[in-house]
């Protein structure tokens, strides 16, 4: 165990020494890796923020429950109880007269409604829901079954479109992430190739005095993983800096729409994923490179 630990520690130290030995090359490689990881991460964060921003605008998830003309106070109370039991969000009763007034208040509607012989609008409940499209669809079906409910309206088409848009956007980000991940592996592959060429003499000596392949590979594997992890940290810094720069303009934009919204940054799990993912991709690039190039060295 001690021997195993010593060998890995030596490999790690060796990798670190090689990284700091050529600071300019290391900095350039880290920049490439950092940007490769930052772009998909920023895209992912943008989609997440967009989802939250849209989720904050309650009108998008508004369910209107229209009552039958003959619904009396007892029936209205029972429907309200049924709506509240669903616990989807706030429930507000809109009497038919209030609905008509609201309609008349709209530009150009006053003249149109003035000619009506009677108020055609029913009493209604408006449910401001904070739930997934699937949950809302289920709730709409349940609400329609309530006594004295004539119709239930949900702007589900818009929500479905938005949900589909988010799905496509996530796919695009995943594809871009995949392409950049392949790029990161390629960058590490080439860096390790150059490292192997630069240390060819040392590799030869190590082999002659009894180094096994694992011993020779290990510093290069750690080099790739370290470089990837540091690139991941740089990506975190880039995304965080971008978020900080955009925070005020986004808050201002939200205020213009009468709401409040603040961008959320990377959570610890996402930071760990970026750093760990960078390390893993770096290790993969290094592993492929050492397998090919050490064999070529003989």
């Amino acid at each position: 165990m001690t021997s195993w630990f010593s060998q890995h520690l030596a490999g790690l130290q060796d990798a670190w020494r090689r990284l700091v030995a050529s600071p300019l090359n290391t900095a350039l490689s880290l920049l490439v890796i950092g940007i490769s990881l930052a772009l998909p991460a920023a895209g992912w964060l943008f989609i997440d923020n967009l989802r939250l921003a849209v989720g904050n605008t309650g009108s998008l998830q508004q369910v209107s429950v229209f009552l039958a003309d003959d619904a009396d106070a007892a029936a209205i109370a029972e429907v309200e109880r049924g709506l509240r039991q669903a616990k989807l969000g706030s429930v507000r009763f809109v009497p038919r007269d209030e609905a008509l007034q609201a309609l008349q208040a709209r530009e150009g509607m006053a003249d149109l409604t003035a000619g009506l012989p009677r108020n055609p609008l029913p009493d209604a409940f408006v449910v401001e829901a904070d739930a997934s499209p699937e949950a809302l669809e289920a709730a709409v079906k349940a609400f329609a079954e309530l006594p004295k409910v004539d119709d239930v309206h949900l702007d589900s088409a818009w929500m479905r479109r938005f949900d589909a848009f988010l799905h496509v956007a996530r796919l695009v980000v995943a594809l871009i992430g995949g392409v950049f991940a392949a790029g990161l592996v390629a960058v590490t592959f080439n860096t390790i190739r150059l490292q192997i060429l630069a240390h060819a003499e040392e590799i030869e000596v190590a082999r002659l005095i009894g180094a096994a392949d694992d011993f020779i590979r290990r510093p290069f594997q750690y080099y790739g993983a370290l470089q990837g992890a540091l690139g991941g940290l740089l990506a975190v810094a880039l995304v965080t800096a971008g978020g900080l720069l955009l925070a005020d303009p986004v808050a201002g934009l939200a205020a213009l729409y009468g709401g409040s919204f603040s961008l959320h940054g990377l959570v610890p799990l996402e930071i760990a994923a970026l750093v760990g993912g960078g390390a893993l991709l770096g290790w993969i690039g290094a592993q492929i490179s050492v397998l090919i190039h050490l064999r070529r060295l003989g």
Partner: protein
Amino acid sequence: MIVFSSVCKRYPEGREALKDVSFEIADGKFAWVTGRSGAGKTTLFRLIAAIERPSSGGIVVNGQNLASLGRRALPYLRRNIGLVFQEQKLLFDRNALANVLLPLAIVGLPPRDAERRALAALDKVGLLDRAKAMPVALSGGEQQRLAIARAVVNRPALLLADEPTAKLDNDSAADILGIFREFHRVGVTVVIASHDPRPIPGVEPQLIALEQGRLLDTAASAAPVEAAQ
């Protein structure tokens, strides 16, 4: 023990470096492998260290038949052989101590124990006070002594050297041979390939003389060096 049985080595371009060579070096012996340039000394050295494989014939080193030795087993064979090259093959980007530490890192010795053993090895070759010196700052003789320290730090049973005194003046060469003699005295098998074998006080070496890839006279292989000269 080293046993060569009808060993031939032919290179891809057709040159035959060794032809039907057979000999035996017992454990604890001091042997010179000698001959002119191109006689096959370095090839023989590389075959014992399994750096190259014979075209035919059998080689046994430290009880291991090299023909049946897989690629993965090679490092473990070499850890029991101390190799000293004519060009030393030192790592010039690290100091003397770090060069000697390398074989110990390969076997995974904890750093503190490794440093203690490396300093002891440097002490044995008279380089303790140059432990922090970079190889480029060492003289030719000191570089060769550093190469010996690296070769013996893992306490190998067999010490192999290829022309270790070729580029040294007489005094430095005598120092180097004195170091080999000390290791021989404590039971290490020492095999030195050299075109210029020298008498070493207190040592009766075995002589393996080569000429154009052939063993000159197997009967003479146990003769003292003076006879060969």
